[in-house]
Structures are given as C-alpha cells and as structure tokens.
C-alpha cells in the first residue's frame, strides 16, 4: 500500500517540475504562482485547523510577519544573483515558528473558541504594528524590496519552483505526520481532547508543535509573495481575506486530508482570479465567497475528498452486502471523525 502512494506523490512532483517547461504564457505562470502559494498555505493551515481541530483565524498575521521579515532583511540590499531571499527562507520560517510558539502556548491552553479569538486578535495586532512601527516597516507608506533581477522572459520561474518546493515540503510533512504518532495524537485531540490527555497523549506539546510548524511555513510563503510583489503595504500583507481564503480552501477540499487543501486551492484560487478578470465588475465577490463558505460548511462539511470517499465506500459496502445476499443495512456516512480513514486519507 505504501508504494502506490509514493508513486502518486512522485507523479505529482514530476508534473509540478515539468509543467513550466511547456513554454507556458506569463499570465498562466503568474496564476500558477498564486495557486501554489495558496495550496501551500492551505496545507499548512490544515495541520492545525484540519488535523488538530483548532481553527486558527490568524494565519494571515504570520504571512505578514514573513513578508515584513524578508523586507527588513533586504531593505537596502543590492541583489546579485537574485536568489538571496530564497536562501534565507528557512530563517524566515524559524522567525515565524518562533513567534508562533508563545502564541500557541497562551492560546491553546484553552478551548478552540478562545483560540480563535486570540488568533483573530493577533491578526489585527500584527496589522496595527505593521502600521505603527514606522522605522521597521515603513508604516502605511509600505516597504520596498529590491526588484528581482530575473530576465523578463523567465521571471516567474524561480518563484514557481520555490513555491513548488514549499508545497512538496508541506505535503511531505503532512504525509509523514499522518503516518506517525504525532498524527495519531492530533487526530485524537480533535476527537476528544480530554480523553486524549487522560490516555497520556502530550496534547500541549503536540498542539504547539503543529501550530509552530504551520505558521513557520505560512511565514515563508509570505516572504516569497513579498519578493514577487516587490512592494508591500500593511493592510495587504496582513489581510483577513487571506485567512478566509485558506480556511475556505481547506474546507472545500477536505480538512484532515492530504490532497484536500491542494484541490481546494486549485479550484478557488484559479476560479477567483479568472472570474474577477473575465467578468469585469464582480460586485458580488465577497458575497460569493461567504455563500460558498456557508454552503460548504452546511452541506459538504467534510469537504470534497472525504465526501467522495464516503460515497464510494458506501457503494462498495452495498455492493458487498448485495453480493452476500444480506439487506444493505448500512448507516449513512458516519458523522464521527473516522480515525482510520483520516490517517489513511490521501495515502493508500
């Protein structure tokens, strides 16, 4: 069972690596860059919001922290190869994780509600700080990064590959988590935290670890974005809409699965960019997002992938029951978090 999933992962990586070589148009590569960005962030959010069941509403704050960190480091720098910001990404990730650690310690002591409150307030504090700490961030005047010295013909490629690498890293982490003790702990926390603690699961440690890793990755994506934009402003670098987007994407594709967030990102990000462009004055932009969110939560709460999985499993059971001649007395897809399927989700 392990071989096919590794094979599938290999196919995915191969496709990611070779797609740009088809001589794609600039606008399409640009679109892919954004899709990869959101796919990575959604997958990272999934670790905390999907597996552990703690819906963080403040990830956009760490996105901004990553963006401003890289902006600060390269403030008056002159770039030579242009790859310097990419090389410093791990440092940015550490900064993000480092800041996330105490936040997690304070806010995850309590229940998910208060966690959401703290994270959303954190988001606004980061934005306020970005506005007020002039000397560091440039305040409302924004912060400039050096222009990437990549030739116009292949401008998007370095960003594409760096983000693809980040996505593969995140998905690899997710995959490893799902198959490890940490993953089991996270799932048990989501199912029933008190019981998990009673059984001896180091709930606090696991939660904080998941959060720190998740926000560290998000910070790295923020740094890449900042470099791509060349100029960042507080209200866009720290934007609640970014949080909404990644939560929505993860929910759409399926929380707690490996491929769910990626699928959600592909659908939503490309859809949103193309629709906003094609349809001109899309007045209903926010309304569509909100309605989509509500529809997904109410009608498809587990997201696309798990729902497909459930339907197929049900059909399989019915077929087996029919074959055995017994009445198909199967319950509707279980509402309880299906531990085995979540661990096996996206893999074999």
């Amino acid at each position, binding site marked *: 069972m392990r071989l096919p999933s590794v094979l599938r992962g290999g196919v995915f990586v191969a496709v990611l690596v070779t797609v740009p070589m088809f001589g794609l148009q600039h606008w399409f590569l640009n679109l892919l860059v954004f899709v990869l960005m959101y796919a990575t962030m959604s997958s990272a959010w999934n670790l905390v919001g999907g597996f552990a069941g703690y819906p963080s509403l403040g990830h956009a704050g760490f996105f901004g922290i990553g963006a401003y960190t890289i902006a600060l480091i390269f403030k008056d720098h002159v770039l030579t190869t242009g790859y310097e910001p990419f090389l410093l990404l791990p440092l940015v990730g550490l900064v993000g994780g480092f800041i996330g650690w105490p936040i997690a310690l304070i806010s995850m002591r309590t229940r998910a*509600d208060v966690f959401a*409150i703290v994270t959303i307030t954190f988001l*606004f504090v980061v934005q306020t700080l970005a506005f007020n700490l002039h000397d560091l961030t440039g305040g409302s005047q924004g912060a400039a990064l050096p222009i990437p010295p990549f030739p116009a013909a292949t401008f998007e490629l370095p960003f594409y590959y760096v983000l693809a690498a980040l996505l593969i890293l995140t998905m690899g982490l997710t995959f490893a988590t799902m198959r490890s003790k940490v993953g089991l702990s996270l799932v048990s926390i989501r199912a029933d935290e008190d019981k998990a603690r009673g059984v001896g699961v180091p709930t606090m440690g696991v939660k904080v670890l998941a959060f720190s890793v998740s926000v560290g990755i998000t910070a790295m994506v923020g740094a890449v974005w900042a470099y791509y934009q060349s100029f960042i402003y507080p209200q866009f670098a720290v934007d609640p809409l970014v949080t909404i987007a990644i939560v929505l994407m993860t929910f759409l594709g399926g929380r707690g699965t490996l491929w769910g967030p990626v699928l959600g990102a592909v659908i939503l990000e490309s859809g949103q960019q193309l629709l906003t462009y094609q349809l001109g004055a899309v007045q209903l932009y926010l*309304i*569509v997002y*909100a309605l989509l*969110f509500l529809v997904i939560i109410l009608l498809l709460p587990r997201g696309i992938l798990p729902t497909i999985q459930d339907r197929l499993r049900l059909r399989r059971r019915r077929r087996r029951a029919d074959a055995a001649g017994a009445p198909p007395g199967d319950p509707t897809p279980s509402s309880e978090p299906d531990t085995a399927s979540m661990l096996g989700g996206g893999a074999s």
Partner: protein
Amino acid sequence: MHALIQGVILGILTGGVYALMASGQTLIFGIMKVVNLAQGAMVIMAAYLSYQLFTRFGVDPFLAIPITTVLMFAFGVGVELLFLRPLRREDKSELSLLVTFAVALLIEGVLSVTWGTTYRSINASYANSSWTLWGYQITVVRLWAFVLSLVALGLLFWLLNRTRFGRAVRATVQNPQSARLLGVEAQWVSALGFGLGAATAAAAGSVYGLLYPFYPGSHYDLISRLLSIVVLGGLGSVGGAVVAGVIVSTSSAIVAATISPAWSEMTFFVILILVLLIRPQGLFGNVDRGAI
C-alpha cells in the same frame, strides 16, 4: 492631568456603547456556546439601517432604534435557524466560529453592494454640539449614547431577570440538561437568544453611526475589540461584559491621551493577553462551566 481626566471621561462615555455591543456577544455565547464573529457586522448593519432611515425618511437615529431592533431581532433569529441550527453537535463549536465569520462576510458583501464603500456617518443636527463642565468637554451625542446604553442594558437585565423568557435563558446558560428536564425548550431559547443578541446590536448601531464614520469593512476593528471585552468580562456574563466594556474603553482612551493615539489600538490586545495569562475565565466567568 487635564488630558488624562478628559480621556477618562471619554472612555467611560464610550464604554457604555461598547458594553452594549459586548453584552449581546456574551449573551449569545452564554446561551449557545457560540462565539458570534458576526456581532461587529451586525452593529454596522444596524448603523446602515439607521443611516438609511435618517437620510431617506428623516428619522432621528435614537427614535429609529425601536424599528431597527425589531428588524435585527428577526435577522438574528433567521441566521440562527438557517445557519447555526443545521450544524451537527460534534462539530458545532469549531464550525459555528466559521459560520458566524462567513455570515459577517456576507453582511459586509451585501452592505458593500447596497451602499458602496465610501464612509458614511449620520449627521444629526446635534452632532457637533457639546457641553463644557468644569473645563471638560462632553459631547452631546456621546452623553446620550451613554444614557441610551444604560437604558438598553437596564432593559436587558429586566428581561433576563424578571421575565419567563429571561429565566429560561439563564437556566439554559447555567445548566442546559436540567433546563431541558424542567421543560425549557432549548431550541427556542437558542433562536430567540441569538435574536436578542442581534437586537442589542441595533441600538448600538444607531449610536455607532452617530459617533463614527463607518463603511462595510468597519466590522473587523469592532469585532476584535468586542472579543477582548467579552473575554475580560468572562464569556457568558452580561454584567462582566458591561464592566469590561468600560474598563477596556477607558484604558484605551487613557493610552490615547497620555501616550499616543497609535498605541491605543494595542490596548485591547494587551488586556486580552493579560487576562488569558492571569485569569483565563475573566472577571466574572465561571471556571467550572468550562467556559475557559
């Protein structure tokens, strides 16, 4: 010193308004264990309703409150029935957060489409007048807002303590199982409770519109303040929300007057963190309810 006292006066007067907004929020949590991230959006929505009544029909915002209260109450009940009721029990606490967040966005989107994104404000004729008392300036609007908040809170207290509905609500807050055994219909309490929370937003909205310019995106600032207040007061305690509203608002005003306006925004967050570190259940919250 003068600036400090002026700041305190301002803080207390504004605190009444925030207390009113926060009381609805904490009430909803107390009844349904739902953190309503749409509370700020509902206040803004009420502000727009009040603005429309004022500019189209010339209705004074204070007098518009009975109208907007009814509208918002109906809206709140509708939201609960449509979006919160269908959530399954296990996922409720996690998903209700996201559902109310989505409702907040929906409200923001509809407001943007209907009224556009320019700032609006309700410019009643008395908007600029002020009194001076012992050298301290007291704006008429703010004073009336404070009085109104007290009246509304008084009504809320009366409702919760002296009516059958109120008793049912408090019973549900304290102990849902027993309440159900005693015949309290939890479903109805939820719907009406959410409606009540929305109704408090109505009064707050009229006042907000008089005091500050607003646009559809104003709810973000508002909700983060409200959440800090509610946590400080103790999730579920209306009295706590009132006290906390005044405390937080006054602290923020003092910081603005003495340090700088830029940092007064941070006051909310600093207080939130301090509360979580020192006394997570807030001033009047219950530890054993698992509120925190």
